[in-house]
């Protein structure tokens, strides 16, 4: 695969929805490299969902409105490409699975994407079974999507995107209805796809603990602007940032902030459980 193919480049991108004056994305300049696992964090209304939808061209092609600047996905300008063309590169999983599920069986739901790409039927079945296994829905092939629980619907939507084998997988709060281990599983699966196939992942989420554990890079959006970016460690160590923006940092990072405010700092701001454990042992042990 061409090294440049899956780069995502935003060049001074601003966007507003039709019949509105306020830009919901403002002068975004950023680059996402092939094989990165990028988390997008921000409060509600920060522009995370709009950002996600710019990646597969739904913004602006289906939503209308006005876009300034350019977005290139694998060298292709999204404003010049059709949504159908972009769909072959970019798979998207929406926050509300009911907004995207529409067939009468789990099997046909997952097969729909690759069918429309003209994939060989045998290969489609292979992909469907693989995708369902990945999201723990094997055995549900003949169930109607409407009869699934909220979390199962969310996993089905992920499977439907996976079956397209996209270069870039975009997930918009796609674990919001999942149980704690289901959430970790989705992050692990996505990380695996990211490592094994070099799939580029862009994930809007508010699950700081998993972001710290799984992601390479974090983008922070605030009222449509990119206000910070960095590794999870750089981001979660930025206490000033968290005073301005209400984002859920890992609880262990919150603990470090609590202790630092009382002049009992943990060594190296921890972002994972292990780091926090070591830091706490050291802090109490060294307090004699």
């Amino acid at each position: 695969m061409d090294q440049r193919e899956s780069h995502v480049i935003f060049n001074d991108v601003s966007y507003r929805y039709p019949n509105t004056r306020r830009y919901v994305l403002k002068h975004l300049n950023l680059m996402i490299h092939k094989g990165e696992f990028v988390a997008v964090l921000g409060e509600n209304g920060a522009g995370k969902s709009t950002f996600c939808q710019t990646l597969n061209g739904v913004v602006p092609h289906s939503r209308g409105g006005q876009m300034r600047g350019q977005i290139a996905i694998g060298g292709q300008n999204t404003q010049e490409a059709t949504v159908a063309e972009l769909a072959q590169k970019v798979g998207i999983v929406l926050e509300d699975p009911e907004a995207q599920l529409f067939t009468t069986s789990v099997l046909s739901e997952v097969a729909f994407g690759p069918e429309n790409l003209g994939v060989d039927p045998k290969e489609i079945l292979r992909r469907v079974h693989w995708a369902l296994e990945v999201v723990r829905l094997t055995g549900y092939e003949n169930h109607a999507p409407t009869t699934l629980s909220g979390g199962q619907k969310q996993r089905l939507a992920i499977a439907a995107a996976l079956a397209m084998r996209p270069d870039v997988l975009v997930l918009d709060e796609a674990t919001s209805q999942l149980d704690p281990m289901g959430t970790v599983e989705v992050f692990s699966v996505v990380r695996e796809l990211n490592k094994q196939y070099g799939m580029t992942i862009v994930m809007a989420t508010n699950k700081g603990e998993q972001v710290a554990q799984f992601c390479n890079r974090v983008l922070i959006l605030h009222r449509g602007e990119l206000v910070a970016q960095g590794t999870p460690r750089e981001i979660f160590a930025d206490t000033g940032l968290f005073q301005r923006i209400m984002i859920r940092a890992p609880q262990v990072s919150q603990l470090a902030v609590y202790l630092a405010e009382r002049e009992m700092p943990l060594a190296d701001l921890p972002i994972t459980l292990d780091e926090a454990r070591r830091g706490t042992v050291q802090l109490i042990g060294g307090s004699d």
Partner: protein
Amino acid sequence: MNGHEITIAVENLEYIYQPHSVKALKGVSFTVRRGEFVGIIGQNGAGKTTLLKNIVGLLLPTSGRVIVDGLDTRQTTVAELATRVGFVLQNPDQQLFAQTVGEEVAFGPCNLELAEKEIKERVDVAIAMTGLEEFRHEFPPALSKGDRAKVVIASVLAMQPEIIILDEPTTGQDYKGCHQIMRIARQLHREGHTVLVVTHDMPLIAEYTKHIIVFRQGKILLNDTTAAVFSQPEILRRTHVTPPQITQLAQALPRELGLPACALTVEQLGQSIVERIHKRRHAPVRYREV
């Protein structure tokens, strides 16, 4: 208000979905006392929402009984139950339909055929409790997700039900929205309402509720205090639940440090660490390597 009176009694509740004969609840029994604040957790598909729908009468038991405020759900209309139990759905957009926030909130009490003055009073109180004053004349779908969820809660509050049930009220909410909603739930509890919250958000449930019922594959796995439930991570794993990260940290720390083995919030563990360090500083003891 009598603190010991049972307000919800679920007895050997079984529920089977057709046409695939999916057994969603397999003989569930528990009681909730008036004024309790109970969390309900468990893996996706464990039967949590099915249980809630049985409590509000939207589903009727395949076998067993559900008694709400003394009424058997099978012999009571949903309308009658709705004056006793308010149900806030997972997705606010499935429940909003009026042109303004005020109309949305007034819809329930209007249907109770109350006097206009009474309706207005109820709407005022519900809107004030949820902090929606400035949006009273706004079109509900135009509000932010957090505020749409609050409109739903307000419209349930206006019915003044004794029991309030929230099905994953914080899904899709940001950090601020989550706490705003849970603070409203806590406030309702303090005012004497019985509150049931279903959620996958362990840090929130650990911080706000005192009692948790854990479901797994249509059965109750644990029914205990919040601290006791989160002290059993091995059992919780069976239903795909992990305790909050801060609780896991407290559990993972060597006991020799002298910190409590259970912490439910960042503040709790933070405070214990601060106290521990103060103690050492003021009465130094020899530190044993851990």
